């Protein structure tokens, strides 16, 4: 469904060019949820924005390809890309208020989106809008239809945004931290909703989050990003139970678990800034297992157990 190959995103600045995403490749199949996890500044959101062509200038795709259903979409003219967004790719962002217009009722916003992308008359559009609201779990949609975004709670707003993203039955949904601003009980409801969409509609979902727990609950595969690159990618159960990259090992150890209460594994230091990525493996200054080669050569993704890890430890002689 979605194929990203060797995608690089650069930001030219006065002090030189920063590479925010560096040679990232992955694919997402129909009905699959791919989790993209990483700490702030790892490049996960930029990757999502690059795929849908919403990079803020001066950011630009410097290399690589994005294909949707086999067709290249990264070099489309603006108008064509605009039609593609919403029609074939839906988006859900962290803060639902940025995706909703405060001056229009949610019913009107849904109808407008449906009429823009689908051939329908107003009556059918209204029917569809109502059934979308019902599907995402808004109670009493008929009476909520004429309400404005500020009249909804945070969780309900995020449901409205998901309904909007679904309006034109897109093949792919990019969800960037969709549950981060929500309370844990509401988060569980939104996770259940995303899972159900992927399963019942065959929608491919790219789920960007910093929360490994959300990925464990929702995704089949996960890509771990660090300093603009994918350092490990594989089935969620492999990556969680048997992480192969030292960064993923450290990350899993640093997550507190209910009832465990032993000292957390620490990864000392912090992720390098984009203008100070060290030569060789970007993780080498913090890595407990580095050796000479890590300081000089940048490792590509190598087969490691059931997954792939960008680490020289897995370079079979």
């Amino acid at each position, binding site marked *: 469904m979605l194929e990203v190959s060797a995608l690089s995103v650069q930001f030219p600045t006065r002090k030189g060019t920063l590479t925010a995403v560096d040679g990232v490749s992955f694919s997402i199949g129909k009905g699959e949820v791919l989790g993209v996890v990483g*700490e*702030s500044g790892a490049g996960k959101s930029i990757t999502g924005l690059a795929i849908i062509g919403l990079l803020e200038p001066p950011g630009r795709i410097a290399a690589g390809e994005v294909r949707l259903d086999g067709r290249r979409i990264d070099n489309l003219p603006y108008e064509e890309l605009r039609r593609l967004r919403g029609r074939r790719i839906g988006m859900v962002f962290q803060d639902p208020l940025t995706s909703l217009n405060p001056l229009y009722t949610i019913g009107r916003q849904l109808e407008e989106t449906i009429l823009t992308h689908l051939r329908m008359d107003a009556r059918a559009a209204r029917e569809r809008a109502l059934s979308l609201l019902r599907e995402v779990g808004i109670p009493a949609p008929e009476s909520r239809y004429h309400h404005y975004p500020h009249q909804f*709670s945070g*969780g*309900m707003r995020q449901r409205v945004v998901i309904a909007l993203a679904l309006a034109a039955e897109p093949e792919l949904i990019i969800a960037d931290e969709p549950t981060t601003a929500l*309370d*844990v*009980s*509401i*988060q*569980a*409801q939104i*996770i*259940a909703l995303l899972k159900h969409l992927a399963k019942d509609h065959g929608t491919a979902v790219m789920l960007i989050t*910093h*929360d*490994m*727990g*959300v990925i*464990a*609950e929702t995704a089949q595969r996960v890509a771990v990003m660090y300093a603009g690159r994918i350092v490990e990618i594989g089935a*969620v*159960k492999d990556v*969680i*139970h048997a992480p192969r990259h030292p960064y993923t090992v*450290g*990350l899993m*150890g*640093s*997550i*507190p*678990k*209910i*009832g*465990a*209460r032993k*000292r*957390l*594994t*620490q*990864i*000392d230091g*912090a*992720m390098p800034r984009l203008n100070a990525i060290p030569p060789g493996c970007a993780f080498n200054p913090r890595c407990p297992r580095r050796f000479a080669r890590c300081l000089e050569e940048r490792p590509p993704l190598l087969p490691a157990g059931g997954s792939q890890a960008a680490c020289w430890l897995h370079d079979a002689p």
Partner: protein
Amino acid sequence: MTLLKLEQVSRDFDVSRPWLNRVLEGEQRRFLRAVDRVSLEIRKGETLALVGESGCGKSTVARLIVGLYAPTEGRVQFAGRRMQMIFQDPYASLNPRWRVRDIVAEPIKVLHTSARVDELLVQVGLSPDDGDKYPHEFSGGQRQRISIARALAGEPDFLVCDEPTSALDVSVQAQILNLMTELQARLGLTYLFISHNLAVVSQVADRVGVMYFGRLVELAPAAALFARPRHPYTRMLLDAVPDLSMTGKARTPVAGEVPNPLAPPSGCAFHPRCPHANERCRREVPGVIDDVACHAVAEGRI
């Protein structure tokens, strides 16, 4: 020994509309009860955590304790020497125009020696040279270390930490949680730890209080609370935490949301979402019996 005691503490906020509207439209003053008759004790040397979802009143309790708010009813008694607070956002709580040295020294301006500031910086894992830098030169985790150094400057014995790691990445969060545990052991500190993250709470807390809609609905030793939650809301919260071990346990999806505080439900505030609610729960506010505020638990129904 009890270091801090809250007795039936409540706090109301005036959310009335402006005076002219009230006069013209004949409206009454309106009050929102953010904290409702909370009683608890914190013992010397322990970590008590308060958990709950946004708007449950946990941060208001923290502010009542440090005296940023005065209680509307009830009493707060503190038997310790000094208390300090650590805030969630290490970007907003440090003055960007001050050098780190001056930030850390502010609480001890009168008697501060540069050696003491160096000692504090080292204590939180920074170097004495960092004192000459400005906050923007540090990452989020290092800034939270600076906040902790400042909080420790006046040698408090009690720290109120309001979501101290919520703004941090998970690997940095681990560094700060480990640091806080070490400091507690070394300096004999007592913590009140406010968080919405149950896994973080399980990592640091000796006892846990669960808040819902301004009330303390359950209070228990951490191990007991996570192994055998009693209040239906606590059970629901624990059920909603994403399961990292991927056991694929069946989960009952949580229904509903926290009610509107201006239109509180009758009886037990949790009853509209509670699977065990009956007529009595809809009518009567449950009192705290044996550290749980729930009719169903008191009656032995669950």
